[in-house]
Structure formats: structure tokens, C-alpha cells
């Protein structure tokens, strides 16, 4: 049983057969159904997902005719005019539809009628796979209940009170009387009279079919199987990139399919760091994979398809024909990623106090161009060429904009003040390494320590910088850390920390770790 949110709490949206036998009915409230049958299982309905799936199904249904659309929340309408004979007649087409929908796991009620309204009525209230001829349409419709006329609940209730149960009863009434009774309720588009006219074909009711989703695919069928498909690929890439350029799109993920004569297909996929439609670059990305290609008896069909794409504006190349720095970087990232995958990374800092979480690496992305001073309008006459860009400073130090500062906790007692930049080492070990430490005071700095079996004598130290565990995600037993920057006798500088303090009740005596190397 599926439930959707109603005006007064959840309402039953759909039921299984077992639930229907237990007393649940569509439109009733969930609490009422639960009162009848407490063992009912209720799941929330995914209305948006249903609508998306129905849209996909409507596109899929274009295998039978080119003009299809969704109809309400649970129906599809297909304009099969001129297409039915391709399937051996209308009855054969309906049988084919039912079989293929059953393959998809869908049960369907199908009908063919000369008008959209009549088909709607027959599919829901007629016989299974009913085909209605134009001549018998009026007589067939007259037999159906008024609900088959696509009227809203209030109108149906009024008709029931008036004793009008079948569409034929309405057709028998004078049109003027029907118009007077129902034409003035602000529902001119869905009056019984209008619905009858639409169902009988007296009023037009066009089906609006959404445009098919755009697809970028280039296919090359070869007259003879070839062992080496490479000479044909450059044309294929050029065609695809021309299509993309016409649509103003750039590809983010691309797939090349090589079909062998014996029906086997080899597929190669590549992703790009930014949208591109550079045929040479895409060709190079995929070309490397051909080392493992098994040609068999040769390939006869080559297909290149963009799987993921996004808008890409046309850009002006430099006068020397070179691309911009961003394009060059994206090309580099693509080449590296294509070969060694996720090992190509960019820093992905996270707002955290723990150094190892702050220094996290994410997937490689094209770095944003450095902040340049915004172009300002030059004063009309006075400046002349004196303010030309070449006079701009070599680089603009922005001491207030360091990343460490941006991550500083502001607002919590800081009053929005930016915290001073914290000292961080140049290199962080992958995991803090345990060291043996000699100290005088348990809470004080160390004097000497031993790391990787080598003793070090500490000459100078700075600290501690206390970093508390993040209580909102660390376990309650996590201990705080006191970080020291120390310099040993031969000059090397290290970042040590003591995990916990003596007597904090979270374990034995605190351990010391070495976490980073300073320059």
C-alpha cells in the first residue's frame, strides 16, 4: 500500500490486491484503513519518481508510433494514425504492446478509438484490448458510465444526484439544458457537453507530444569489416563534435562502441574534467585503450555517443592558436586520470579542526583562475596608458584571504573576527606515527624523543596548540591533542602531539605521535 500526503494526513495512493481485499481503497485515509486492518504495510509514494518513469515510458512507447505523450498521472496516449498497419493491424498492435509492457513488469489496459477522449474511456471502462470503429463509437460510448467522460468529482456527484448514470443518458438530454446547467461553473473546459463532443470528435483535442530527448551519437557502418578501426575514428569524432558545437554543448563523458562481425562489442568510456568538444583531445583519450583491443574477424559498425554533456559556450582561442590555461589544465587532468584514475587529486579542504580532515584530497578539478583585480573603468582622459595592466603588481598578496583563515571558526565567541593563521607543517604523514618521548612535566613539552629508531634531542619548541576532539562525530572516548612545533639538534623541525592529558579519565598515560614535517 502506498500513501501520499493528503490535506488531512496521509491518504492511500495505491494498493495491492491483498490490501484491497483487506479493506483499503484508494483515496481513503491511512488511519482509517489501519483501523480496519492493522497489519497493512504502508510505504510513502514517490510521486515525482512515478511521473519521471511515466515520461520515460512515453518516450519508450515511440517504438509503435512517433507521437506519444503522458496522459494524467497513470496513462499514456499514442497517436497511432498511419502506424497501426506496420504492426499488422490495430488488434495485433495492442497485443504486441501488452506483451512488451508485461516484459517490463507492467500491467496495462489498452484500447484503440478514433478520439483521445473515447480511447481514454474505453481503456478504463471498456473491455480488454478493445478496438472501436468510428461508426460504432457513439453507441459504444453511450453504454459507458459518466465517469468515463473525464469529469471532476463534483460534476460526477451532481450527475449522480440527477440520476444520470451512463454517458448515453447525457447524450439523450437537450444540449441547451446541459449547457445551462453545467456551463456556468467556471469549468468551461471540462463540462459534460464539451467532454462528449471531444469524445465523439466534434471538438478537436490535439495530443501534445514532448520533443524526444536530445542525443549525441555518431554511427559509422562500414561496407567491409576492418581489423583496425582507427582511420575511421577521426571522422566519427569530427561529426560528433560538430553536432555538439551546433547545440552549444560540451561532452563530459563519452563512450565508443566497436561492434564486431560476430556480434560482440567492445566499449570504451572516458570522462573529462570539463565540458569539451575538442575532437583531437577526445580521440587521444580513447585511443590509448586500444592496446587491449581484440579485433576478431573485424569490426563493421563504430558508434560514438556522448553519455553526459553540459552547455559549453564557444570560446575565443588566443591569437597564437593556443588554448587558454584552463583548457590546457583540463586536458592534462583528463590524460592523467585516464591512465591512473583516482590517484589524481586536488585538495578538498573540509571545515574541521583536525588536521588530517582539513587536509583531505578530492577528485581532481580544474583550479579556478587566480583572483585578478577586477577591471575598473579607467577615468576618461587623465589616466592615459599609465594605468595599463602591465603596471599591475607582480602579485597581490592577500594576507586576509588565506584558506586557513577562511576555515577559522568565526562567530562562536569570535564575534566574526578572523582567527590568526595557524601554523601548519609543509608535509603531513599519512597517519601519525607513534614516538617514544621523554618529558619533565606530563603537561609540558617533550625533551627528547625517538622516531623510526632514531633519537632526537629537542632544542626549541613552540606550543602547545590544543585541538579538542569533535564531539559531534567522534566517539566519547576520543582524546584531545596538544600540538607542538619542535626543532631538534640538527635543525629538522617536526610537528608532534600528545594525545590526551594525564588523568583525563579516557585511557592510560597519554601517547605521543609525530604528525608532520616543517620546512
Amino acid at each position, binding site marked *: 500500500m502506498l500513501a501520499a500526503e493528503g490535506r488531512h494526513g496521509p491518504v492511500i495512493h495505491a494498493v495491492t490486491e491483498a490490501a484491497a481485499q483487506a479493506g483499503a481503497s484508494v483515496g481513503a485515509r491511512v488511519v482509517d484503513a489501519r483501523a480496519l486492518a492493522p497489519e497493512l504495510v504502508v510505504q510513502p509514494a514517490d510521486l515525482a519518481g512515478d511521473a519521471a518513469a511515466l515520461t520515460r515510458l512515453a518516450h519508450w512507447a515511440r517504438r509503435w508510433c512517433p507521437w506519444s505523450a503522458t496522459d494524467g498521472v497513470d496513462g499514456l496516449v499514442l497517436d497511432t494514425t498511419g502506424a497501426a498497419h506496420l504492426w499488422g493491424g490495430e488488434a495485433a498492435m495492442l497485443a504486441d504492446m501488452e506483451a512488451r509492457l508485461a516484459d517490463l513488469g507492467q500491467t496495462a489496459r489498452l484500447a484503440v478509438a478514433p478520439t483521445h477522449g473515447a480511447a481514454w474511456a474505453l481503456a478504463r471502462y471498456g473491455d480488454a484490448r478493445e478496438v472501436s470503429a468510428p461508426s460504432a463509437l457513439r453507441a459504444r460510448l453511450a453504454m459507458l458510465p459518466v465517469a468515463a467522460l473525464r469529469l471532476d468529482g463534483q460534476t460526477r456527484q451532481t450527475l449522480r444526484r440527477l440520476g444520470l448514470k451512463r454517458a448515453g443518458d447525457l447524450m439523450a438530454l437537450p444540449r441547451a439544458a446541459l449547457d445551462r446547467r453545467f456551463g456556468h461553473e467556471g469549468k468551461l473546459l471540462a463540462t459534460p457537453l464539451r467532454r462528449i463532443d471531444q469524445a465523439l470528435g466534434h471538438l478537436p483535442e490535439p495530443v501534445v507530444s514532448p520533443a524526444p530527448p536530445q542525443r549525441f551519437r555518431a554511427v559509422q557502418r562500414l561496407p567491409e569489416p576492418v581489423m583496425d578501426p582507427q582511420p575511421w575514428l577521426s571522422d566519427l569524432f569530427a561529426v560528433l563534435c560538430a553536432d555538439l558545437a551546433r547545440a552549444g554543448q560540451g561532452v563530459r563523458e563519452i563512450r565508443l562502441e566497436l561492434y564486431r562481425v560476430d556480434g560482440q562489442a567492445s566499449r570504451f568510456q572516458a570522462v573529462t574534467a570539463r565540458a569539451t568538444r575538442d575532437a583531437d583531445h577526445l580521440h587521444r583519450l580513447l585511443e590509448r585503450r586500444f592496446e587491449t583491443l581484440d579485433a576478431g574477424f573485424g569490426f563493421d559498425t563504430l558508434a560514438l555517443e556522448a553519455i553526459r554533456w553540459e552547455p559549453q559556450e564557444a570560446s575565443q582561442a588566443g591569437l597564437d592558436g593556443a588554448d587558454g590555461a584552463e583548457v590546457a589544465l583540463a586536458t*592534462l587532468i583528463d590524460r592523467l586520470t585516464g591512465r*591512473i584514475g583516482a590517484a589524481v*587529486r586536488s585538495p578538498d579542504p573540509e571545515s574541521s579542526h583536525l588536521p588530517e580532515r582539513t587536509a583531505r584530497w578530492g577528485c581532481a578539478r580544474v583550479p*579556478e583562475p587566480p583572483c585578478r583585480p577586477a577591471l575598473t573603468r579607467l577615468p576618461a582622459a587623465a589616466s592615459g596608458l599609465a594605468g595599463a595592466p602591465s603596471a599591475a603588481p607582480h602579485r597581490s598578496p592577500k594576507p586576509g584571504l588565506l584558506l586557513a583563515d577562511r576555515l577559522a571558526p568565526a562567530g562562536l565567541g569570535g564575534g566574526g573576527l578572523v582567527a590568526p593563521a595557524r601554523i*601548519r607543517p609543509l608535509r603531513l604523514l599519512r597517519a601519525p606515527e607513534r614516538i617514544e618521548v621523554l618529558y619533565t612535566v606530563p603537561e609540558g613539552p617533550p625533551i627528547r624523543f625517538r622516531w623510526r629508531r632514531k633519537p632526537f634531542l629537542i632544542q626549541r619548541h613552540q606550543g602547545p596548540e590544543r585541538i579538542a576532539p569533535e564531539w559531534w562525530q567522534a566517539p566519547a572516548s576520543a582524546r584531545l591533542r596538544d600540538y607542538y612545533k619542535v626543532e631538534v639538534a640538527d635543525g629538522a623541525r617536526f610537528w608532534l602531539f600528545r594525545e590526551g592529558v594525564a588523568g583525563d579519565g579516557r585511557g592510560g598515560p597519554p601517547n605521543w605521535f609525530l604528525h608532520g614535517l616543517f620546512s
Partner: protein
Amino acid sequence: MVDSLVVRMSTPALHLPPVTEVLSSSREGAATGFVLAQLDASGRQGPILWVQDRLSMQEGGLPCFQGVTGQMGQEFPLLHVAAKDAAQALWAMEEGLQCAALSAVIGEIWGTPKALDFTATKRLALRAGRSGVPLWLIRADGTPGLSVAPDRWRVTSAPSAAHPLDPEAPGPALWQAELFRSRRSPPGRWVASHDRAAHRLDLAAALCDRPVGEGQGGPAPSRAVGGN
């Protein structure tokens, strides 16, 4: 003397590829700091491609974005490649050196693997010379082998300068930099420091003890660098 040296170091000879090898220990960050200071002094803009092989990551850790930002004084976009071995790291460096949009390629290779032979350095130097992207090859715990790099340094940490506020704390970093093989200037030893405000790498003549037995005898003068 310092000025003339700095000038000489900062004007590249055009016919030499911009490849530099830096040998160091994997247990200190001196080479990393020295290379970043050189990058800062070179003034090139753009992201850095930082290639490490598995062993150098295991021994010396990964670059810390906050630390790099702190040393460079501004955000430098980083692209990091965690290669699985030296051969893959060399390939990634070659690819990076073809992209002129990078400000530099930093490659870290631990030890002396077979893949890093004369031919490999020649390939790197050719690509670097063509695109003009400087390559800094950090050889942690490595032994100097055959290489076409015009400049080869050996960098270790030196006791830091005095901290301006706290006499107990380590101050600005100093390094012992030894240029042991070079095709543009005579080799030498210096104490290097990074002037962050002026975007400059300063090299000062190293004051070191003379070998025992040299001079007029008597106790050798003690080291006079970085004293309080």
C-alpha cells in the same frame, strides 16, 4: 656576495633545461621548503603539479595544503598525483611538463629506483625545455646517479633563525643548501632562507667548522649560525 649569487641564480641560462634535482632525507621537510621557496622566487603563476611515488608518500608524507599556502603566502592550486611506483611517477611528470599552464612540476621519487636512469632524466629535460615548465625533482634518501639536470642540490635543515617574539620557539626556517653539481655556476655551500615578503630566496655563505688539524691549532670556533 649574496646579491651577485642571487642574481646569477635567478637568471636562467636559456639553453639549459629548467630541471633541478634536490637530494635530501625523507625525514625532514627541508627539501620541500627549499623547492617551494625557489618556486616563490621564480614568480611563475599557475597551479603546481605535485607527483609522488608510493614510497615517498609512505616515508615523507603528503604535502599539506594549509602548510604550502602558509609558506607561499598565497593560495597555490595543487594537483597531486599519487603514483604507484617510480615509473608511473615519471610518466605523470612527463605529461605534466607538456602543459605550459602549470607553474611548476614537483616530482618526488624515493631512493634510487631503476626507472630513474639517465634516459629518464633526459626525457624529462627535453619536455621541460620545450614547454619551459620548471621541474623540481626531489630525491628523498637517494644517491646521486647519472642525470642531465643542470643543477643538483643537497639540502638539509639548519637550526632556524631567532623567532621575533619567542626566544624558545623555532623561527623562520633555514636550510643548508649545497650545490654539488651545476652547469651554470661553481658549486658551493650556502645557508638558504626564504624571504616571504619579498618573494626571494636568500643564499648566505655558510659558516662552518674547518676540518680538524687545519689552521694554527687550538680549539675550533664553534658554530655561529642561529645563536641566541
